[in-house]
């Protein structure tokens, strides 16, 4: 009996011992590649794709404050919940910063200087923009993983300085490029062109210094130097844009504003700000010729259209039409002309069934439809317009912006050149960009009617009006207002610059105030993201939205 038991026990032990060996291979996840699969081209494209998402998030948040799109409000305090900022925060730190930090040393070691430089430049833009949106943010203690689980904030100024240093590193890396330097397999911005990236880096330095010009006198000389060197984005071929494609799903590679307005059978989903449409259509003695490229009206005449069968429906679909304007007569309200239907700033009423009535994004920059009085709704399906198919751009930095900044620098800092000359160049650059855009994305305009298109005649007439306004302005402040208005109109699709400019200069100075008049203090920086406040012990949420970023010493009563 004893021997039997011994045999059993021995068998059991052998059985267990043999099993234990097979545990180790199970520690590695069979569904994921090992870290050895990391490749700098994969990192680079990751950074670039997340960067365009970061920009899209940033512009979609800030363009509501400058009335390019609607802010529902009704108060500035409750216009955005902290969760609205989680995405942008995640993309900046987890995707862009961490990937760039990991990739740059690896790329430099492999003489992939263009890879490294691109990562540095995109990271610098991200840093500056995060400060612009939130103020002081974690940086020097950030992206250290579990080594620092509660990064503290750095002052915005310090982050700006780090970003400028990073831009210099990026410029230096681009300069290290030799014929042996491997080019990125698919640089989605400049096709691996180091010259263009260098111009971008220097332009971003100019932008960054200009942002600081009111709080740091030392930047004036640096601005002058950059302008004098003029290695900037000063021609459309160097425009820093992200180009989309018409690929609709898996992945959806279309312009996000195309997808949300032309991509669904349920109609459009964005509201254009009433003020922006008014500024294009009514602010000057002629309508802006870019309007039909910028915006597409789904309905030509709100007052006489079969799609609005009876009074009850109309009143429900466009309730503001049946109310009197709460604004002074000079301020826009409800509808511009007979078909420019958007939404007033701070209007948080329920959403009416107006998806087929709202004015929406046009062919520039979202690759939607050109407005040739089609009088048709936008969307998918039969009797709807589909536009260019979504292969639009994010105009992150255009040569026109450089000119407007130069104009501001010349006017305010005497940084070189003639402000009016730069202003003119800026407007012309914007017009060329917009007028040439349909052809650039391979879209045939639905009309050849020169009454609707940008023509050299209309362009010069418009430029003349702007120049007249500039000449007629009685003070530098008014002249700045003219420059900033044109910058604002040229920056359609880039709320980031428009929002920065407004906080820096307070221009344009005739924004439509929030509906209801009780919006409270303007947002000078956003609440911190929920993910930061919820998980970071060192995070203190702001209790108000009028906390200014470090470069903002402008008046308190922005509206």
């Amino acid at each position: 009996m004893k021997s039997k038991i011994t045999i059993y026990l021995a068998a059991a032990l052998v059985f267990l011992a043999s099993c234990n060996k097979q545990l180790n291979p199970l520690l590695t996840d069979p569904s994921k590649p090992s870290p050895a699969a990391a490749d700098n081209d994969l990192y680079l494209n990751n950074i670039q794709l997340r960067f365009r998402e970061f920009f899209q998030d940033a512009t979609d948040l800030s363009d509501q404050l400058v009335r390019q799109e609607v802010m529902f409000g009704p108060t500035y305090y409750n216009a955005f919940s902290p969760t609205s900022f989680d995405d942008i925060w995640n993309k900046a730190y987890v995707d862009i910063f961490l990937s760039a930090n990991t990739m740059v040393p690896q790329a430099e070691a492999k003489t992939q200087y263009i890879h490294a430089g691109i990562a540095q430049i995109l990271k610098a833009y991200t840093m500056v923009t995060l400060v612009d949106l939130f103020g002081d943010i974690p940086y020097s203690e950030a992206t250290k993983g579990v080594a620092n689980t509660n990064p503290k904030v750095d002052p915005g100024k310090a982050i700006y300085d780090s970003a400028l240093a990073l831009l210099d590193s990026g410029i230096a890396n681009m300069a290290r490029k030799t014929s042996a330097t491997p080019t990125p397999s698919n640089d989605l911005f400049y096709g691996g062109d180091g010259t263009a990236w260098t111009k971008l880096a220097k332009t971003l330095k100019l932008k960054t210094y200009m942002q600081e010009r009111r709080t740091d006198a030392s930047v004036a000389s640096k601005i002058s130097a950059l302008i004098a060197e003029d290695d900037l984005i000063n021609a459309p071929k160097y425009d820093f844009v992200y180009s989309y494609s018409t690929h609709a799903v898996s992945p959806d590679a279309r312009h996000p504003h195309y997808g949300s307005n032309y991509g669904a059978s349920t109609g459009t989903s964005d509201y254009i700000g009433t003020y922006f449409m008014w500024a294009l259509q009514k602010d000057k003695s002629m309508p802006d010729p870019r309007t039909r490229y910028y915006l597409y009206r789904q309905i030509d005449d709100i007052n006489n259209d079969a799609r609005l069968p009876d009074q009850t429906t109309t009143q429900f679909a466009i309730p503001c039409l049946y109310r009197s304007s709460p604004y002074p007569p000079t301020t826009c309200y409800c509808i511009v002309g007979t078909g420019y239907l958007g939404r007033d700033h701070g209007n948080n009423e329920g959403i009416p069934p107006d998806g087929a009535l709202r004015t929406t994004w046009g062919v520039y920059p979202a690759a939607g439809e050109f407005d040739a009085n089609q009088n048709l709704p936008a969307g998918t399906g039969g009797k709807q317009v589909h536009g260019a198919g979504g292969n639009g751009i994010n105009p992150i930095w255009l040569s026109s912006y450089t000119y407007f900044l130069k104009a501001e620098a010349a006017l305010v800092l005497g940084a070189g050149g003639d402000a009016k000359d730069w202003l003119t160049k800026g407007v012309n650059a914007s017009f060329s960009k917009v007028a040439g855009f349909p052809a650039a994305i391979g879209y045939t305009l639905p009309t050849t009617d020169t009454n609707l298109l940008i023509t050299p005649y209309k362009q010069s007439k418009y430029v003349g009006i702007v120049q007249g306004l500039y000449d007629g302005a009685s003070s530098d402040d008014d002249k700045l207002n003219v420059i900033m208005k044109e910058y604002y109109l040229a920056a359609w699709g880039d709320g980031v610059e428009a929002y920065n400019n407004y906080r820096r200069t307070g221009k344009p100075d005739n924004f439509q105030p929030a509906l209801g008049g009780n919006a409270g203090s303007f947002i000078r920086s956003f609440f911190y993201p929920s993910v930061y406040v919820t998980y970071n012990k060192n995070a203190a949420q702001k209790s108000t939205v009028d906390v200014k970023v470090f470069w903002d010493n402008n008046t308190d009563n922005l509206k």
Partner: protein
Amino acid sequence: MRKLHCYLMGVLLLIGSGLLAQTTEVTGKVTDPTGSPIPNVSVRIKGVRGGTSADANGVFKIKVVPTAVLIISGVGYEATEVPVNGRTSLTLSLKAGTNALSEVVVTALGREKEKKALGYAVTTIKGTAVEQRPETDIARLLTGKAPGVNILNSSGISGSGTNINIRGISSINAGNATPLFVVDGVPFDAGTNVNANFQYGGGISTTSRFLDLDPNNVENINVLKGLAAAVLYGEAGRNGVILVTTKNGSGHKSQKKLEITGTQSISANSVANLPDYTHTYGGGFDLAPSAAFSNWGAKFTNPPLQMSYSPALQAAFPQYAGKKQDYKFYNSVHDFFRTGLISTTSVNVSSAGQNTTFNANYSYTGDQGFTPNNRVYKNNLGVGGTAKLSNHFTANAVLNFAITDMQTPTVGANGGGGSADKASVFGNLFFTPTSINLMGLPFQNPIDGSSIYYRNTNDIENPRWAANNNITNDKVYRTFGTLGLKYEVIKGLNVSYRFGLDNYSEYQSLSVNKGGKQGDNTYKTGTYRTTNIQNTIINHTLIVNYNTTFGNDFTLDVDAGGDFRHDLYNQTGMRSNQQLVFGLFDHSNFISHDSKDEGDNDLDYKSEKIREGVFAQATLGYKDYLYLQASGRNDWVSTLEPTHRKLLYPSVSLSYIPTQNLSFLQDSRAVNYLKLRVGYATSAHFPDPYNTRSSFNLTANAYIDKNGNVVNIGGIPDRVPNPNLKPELLREIEGGIESRLFDNRITLDITGYFRTAKDQILDRNLDASTGYHVTQINAGSVDNKGVEIALGYTVVRGKDWRWELQGNFTLNRSKVHGLPDDIKQINIGGYSGGPGIFVINGKPLGILEGSYVQVDPKSGKKIVDANGYYLGSSDIGIIGDPNAKYNLTGISTLTYKWVSLRMQWDYTKGGQIWSNTVRTMLARGVTKDTDFDRTLPFILPNTVKQDGTPNDIQQSVDNVYFNSYGFGQASTQVWDATVIRLRELALNFSIPAKILKNTPFGSASIGFSGTNLWYYAPNFPKHTRFDPESNSLGVGSAKGVELFSGPSSRRLGATLRLTF
């Protein structure tokens, strides 16, 4: 009791008559009342040391003096004293134990033990308590039946997932708190394979795998609650163990040679709760009628106002063009639902030979939900048998096969904001304006199949379209079974080996036709997602059992052994978008294909885990009244690095029965049985695989650039690997009293426990500024302490009448502590920006947080903003505790001759829930709760302005409800979930045997039963009639967030059961 005693004495006297007075060797055979031998019973001589035990055939030999008295005792039978009276050959029949002393329960690893010897709590539920019910989910049938066991439905949708947890939740990590299911001794996967997170309906539209069990095939269920009870199962048993013995696996002997039982039930499944909708106002806003999503429109008039049909309807159906419809009350939501039919057919065949038993079982269940297109089909087939072989071997085998097929319209987590963000059949239903003729008008465009509803652009999807075109399916083919061999080495020493297999293929799909109006564009253009899951658990267990007696007073029972468990999970899947031909679901009918789900998670992955353990357990008994049990187990688990993967954990318990020991209690009429027990036990928790090693994150086809090039991207995974991860240790102390009092009229079992789980393995959320989102660490402790009480009272115990009351009480308090200072909080469910479920130091596990209304520190009143609406917070704070204060169940069973009436009431006190259904109904003014005069302006009561002065800002009532009460801060949308419920009512007629005498039937019964017949949740807005027993977060450790999970189900039916 006295009667029984008399009867026993009678039997003994009969046995004892006519004996010869000689000294000799006595040969005996012990059988049960049916004549089958009882193996291994113990035979002792009264007053003399030593003894013997019977062999496998119940035969024993013993030398005695003629006047000796034999004491025959066997596990599960009443110990019987038999005077030899000079006989040489005895045939003894032992009665199955009915009193507390002889009660036998199945414990860990399927070992049958005398309950009196156990130092921990075990609750037994008989198969009769779960069979013949109009419910197919065995877990839901357990509700209230065992103290300490908490069950929470995710929805009333037939086949939706079910939460079970025992003695609270010990693990912070949002993973699974579901107890281990062991069926016929073999671990059984009870997981819920969610392939879309809760927002996409993963929690509700995915079945929990215990649905594959057939409640009609259950012989009994034993619930092992504490760690002491489950220690032999190792880490798998840390959440408690539900031991299911099926009729096939029981080895139970039928009364006759061949017995066939047939059962047929028919039930109706209907909605248990619908809101009381206002009959006064219709759809619109600001008292104007319109196609708004809200019900703040005009008052109904007689004759009614006339409204146009929607342009889309007029375009698709010319008969409506230019016509008008009445603006009046339509009972749309009520009429949307149907009464489903549940039918269960079950056949059981059992047979017994001299040394063999055989059982086979087949059942079919068809369960139609109350929601159109929701149904569950179940087919269960199983066979099992045991054979005792002459060469000391005993063999048993069970094989079960199940097909479970569940289908439902998708139930996603919908925000209630109108144009639905996440597809759900309920997302647009409950706030349907009362003036909308949902059921009277077409919902589908006859040309392109798209949804048509009452308004165009910024549409909402017609719920009827959603119910017909937006379908989730979950189909499982499952085989599980065991093969066991037992060998008796020498008397008292057995070696047994068991092989267990649980293998299933699960096929899940989401089929959405194009033409919908909710979800993102991928939904609207048509979506088809399929996943194939292959899950296998292979288990080998070897146990050596030795029991003996030594001295006069000691018994020893030792189990030792090892087990090996191999878990394999493999999933492949695909999601296709852009449907070509409407109505056809085949991946080739879609333009684009992806390997990720809607929430961007991989559909293809695999996971493998091996766990090895050795264990030993010994019970030392002294004089039938004192038992000391000690056990230990050592595990090696493949999910941790070699230096951390091993853990040894011991336990010890003591059981003392004073009624056997103290003389003054032995004849007490007041205290018939008393047992005191105390135990200390430990258990472990090992993490899921693949958390210790780094990998690379690769996304193929992330983007198509303007030139048509495919862009692939790579990056660092947002989860920081942790090579130092170690197992989590759980410790528990439990003590209890089991008693039978006052002539056995009252049974009272009380258990108290304190459990602490330290070095929690938890997913620690990281602020993205660290560069990562999450890492798994060991940190913090969770304490659970609680009381479980089961009180039974036999009120009437007459010849014809019997009335028993049973009360079960469960109370559990949890507390999280010891989280390191650098952790602010951890999100375990819901939305991380609120409303969500969080873990915070010093608070109960799973606190509800969300945005809240700012309060004026001086007056303590809520603050309003310049527009007169609540001023919200810019962060989140605690807004509720979803953990119930206690649960109470009362069961009454009244029997008169062959009629019995059973009733179960459940009461849950406390626990809070954030309800999207309720807030949306308030915000949109659809229920009678908002039936007041809506023309008067409204000032939010008890509020102050930001400067502290009383609020005097008038707003329209609909604006206040919309912006503040309904869609305002989450803190205003939390309600207390106290609820009382008539869970079950059953009337059963068992036809008396004498009536059946000349029929082929052995027994016959007919029963009528209903579940969830009535409930009342007093703290919810009255007319919303909300049922708090729902959880949109699916199956896991988080509860307290409800996002249109749907109403609960009421079931009424009849069952006929016949035995041949």
